[in-house]
């Protein structure tokens, strides 16, 4: 099913669409307030963009610098070309340490790689410790949003899940009480898991350190109590220097959730005595994207989710309609890189309104890339044949004034005389009236009132 069909299904329940829209719009408004609280917000975005451009232009150098500094700190560095290698590396680390259960804080990269399922097939049980991700794990669903994974779930639905799996009283939907239940449940997990996996928000090339941002402290709880800490990161997560954190940490949470900063910004600089620390650096299509001049800027993304929160289409179609780990506008320019045919619909799931580009903290030209992907997809033959024919027909008509005039005349005549039949021909009329067609065009009026009058 493509985005349009899935979005159409989502829209069958209008009150839910309204609730989803308003939840995310509320976050967008919080973001606006935070952005305005910082003097020179737009300068900050510009600086972040420039730093990330520099990173992408020198990615190889920064990756090597990061690796050598990380190794000096006692961190074991692994390189994974794709999702399969990433999963196999993590499996091997766990196997070597005879570990069959792991706790994992939020990592969209492991979602992208399908790590949980891979490990489950090999007898390793993973518990997600981010509250949203834990809710979805219990529900056997995937995140619908990269920052607020369970934003599509109502508190009553979460209450039902917790009643079934965590033994909360039936009908309990008070967020405070549900969170408390999750907290007790996860405490036991943190204390008994010997391995912890975290994501990486920023990896610092000059020092070999990395920073993980969470609001729940769950990455710290897992990592600090573990014998083996594994961190998964995409190759684009680098920043050159420690001082650049001052730029990105100010932008990340303000853009994503409308907080001044995430509750926890945890700096990892090497394993404690007796602990193993591994970093798995993953490509999985990113270097291909880096080679596409028009689309490489998408790799500047710091995964704040602001473009989803502001997107009027995302808010009214839900994350699942995108069928990718990263949904919304940024997901729509990342996904076709991985598979043009499967995700050919996503760059069209946008009105090109440009709001995404305006909120992006690293100034990715998201809506312009959506436009450019459309051109690539049409040329590569990934647009429906019927649409292609329609466009060729339109191009023929619009290139010839006389054809255009005759077609327009026929169209208006038909609209005037058979509005009901015309309505049946187009999806326009499912929720809208067709415009009334006038007898005379502007060109006709102009000829009569200006050209002929003036001779």
């Amino acid at each position: 099913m493509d985005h349009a069909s899935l979005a159409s299904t989502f829209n069958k329940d209008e009150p839910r669409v309204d609730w989803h829209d308003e939840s995310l719009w509320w976050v967008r408004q919080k973001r606006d307030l935070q952005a305005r609280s910082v003097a020179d917000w737009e300068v900050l975005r510009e600086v972040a963009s420039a730093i990330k451009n520099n990173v992408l232009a020198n990615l190889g150098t920064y990756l090597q610098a990061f690796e050598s500094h990380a190794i000096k700190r006692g961190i074991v560095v692994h390189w994974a070309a794709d999702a399969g290698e990433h999963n196999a590396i993590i499996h091997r680390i766990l196997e070597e340490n005879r570990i069959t259960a792991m706790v994992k804080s939020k990592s969209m990269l492991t979602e992208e790689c399908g790590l949980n399922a891979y490990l489950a097939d090999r007898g390793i049980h993973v518990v997600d410790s981010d509250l949203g991700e834990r809710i979805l794990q219990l529900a056997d669903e995937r995140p619908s949003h990269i920052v607020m994974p369970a934003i599509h779930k109502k508190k009553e639905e979460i209450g039902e899940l917790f009643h079934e799996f965590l033994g909360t009283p039936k009908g309990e939907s008070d967020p405070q009480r549900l969170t408390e239940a999750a907290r007790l449940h996860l405490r036991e997990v943190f204390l008994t898991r010997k391995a912890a996996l975290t994501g990486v928000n920023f990896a610092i090339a000059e020092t070999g350190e990395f920073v993980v941002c969470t609001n729940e402290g769950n990455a710290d709880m897992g990592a600090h109590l573990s014998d083996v800490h594994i961190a998964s990161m995409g190759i684009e997560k680098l920043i050159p220097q420690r001082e650049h954190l001052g730029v990105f940490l100010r932008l990340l949470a303000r853009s994503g959730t409308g907080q001044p900063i995430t509750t926890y910004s945890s700096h990892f600089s090497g394993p404690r005595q007796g602990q193993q620390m591994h970093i798995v650096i993953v490509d999985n299509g990113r270097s291909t994207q880096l080679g596409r001049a028009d689309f490489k800027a998408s790799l500047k993304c710091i995964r704040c989710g602001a473009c989803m929160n502001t997107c009027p289409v995302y808010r009214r179609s839900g994350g699942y309609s995108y069928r990718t780990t990263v949904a919304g506008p940024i997901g729509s320019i990342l996904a076709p890189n991985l598979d043009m045919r499967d995700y050919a619909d996503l760059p069209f799931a946008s009105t090109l309104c440009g709001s995404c580009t305006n909120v992006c903290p690293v100034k990715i030209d998201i809506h312009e890339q959506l436009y450019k992907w459309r051109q690539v997809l049409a040329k590569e033959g990934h647009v429906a044949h019927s649409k292609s024919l329609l466009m060729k027909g339109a191009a023929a008509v619009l290139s010839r004034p006389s054809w255009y005039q005759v077609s327009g005349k026929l169209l208006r005549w038909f609209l005037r005389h058979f509005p009901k039949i015309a309505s049946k021909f187009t999806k326009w009329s499912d929720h809208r009236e067709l415009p009334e067609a006038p007898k005379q065009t502007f060109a006709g009026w102009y000829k009569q009132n200006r050209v002929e009058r003036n001779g």
Partner: protein
Amino acid sequence: MMTVGLFIPCYMDQLYPNAAIATLELLEGLSLDVVYPLHQTCCGQPLANSGFSHLTQGCNALFIENFSRFDYVVCPSGSCALHIKEHLSSLNQQEDATALASRVYELVEFLTDVIKIQALDASFPHKVSLHHSCHSLRGLYLAQMSELSSPTFSKPNDLLNMVDGLELVKLERSDECCGFGGTFCVFEEAVSAKMGKDRVDDHVVSGSEYITSSDMSCLMHMEGILKRNHSATKVIHIAEILNSKSAPNIEPKG
């Protein structure tokens, strides 16, 4: 006297001639030499936004042929003006195409930035709400955008404030997209219609009698929803308001 070529988008020519007439009369009222070249068709945006920019050579060639001779080209649609500005191309005369594209103006910005209009002889004693088309706003920067931390300004509001009796009403979401989106409106019908419905509701709740915009395509979409719901709120192109000469209770057609 400067000569102005009037570029009327294809769907306005066919379906909204009154908005086009208002644009012409408004410009003529400023003592400009305004000419509407009769062999114009479309800017090519429907093709390009669908991924078929490689099929727009015909539209581009016609545009260049029709409008190269003018000092300025004025278009009462931010979306079409933006498309020409960003994408007008030519295989063998690219320099001319680029130069021509830089002389293309959307109507509102032409009035505020080129003519630098200070007063209007217009009256429209109604409650009016402004719909920012995304291309006028985020493409042509006709007003401050809600996402950006920058000083407040609004070129369309400056013009509407010159109209006698007009009361501008405020919206809950000042610049959210209406969901028209060109072919998006049929290929993503469900989301498009829902976006339109939400946008229209915001205008209606504000107490607006007329939704106005510098883009008739957004208005066509919103008008379709208003009419389906038998709403009393109407749509009107901004040119029709700016050109309404002290005529109370006018009943503009769409």
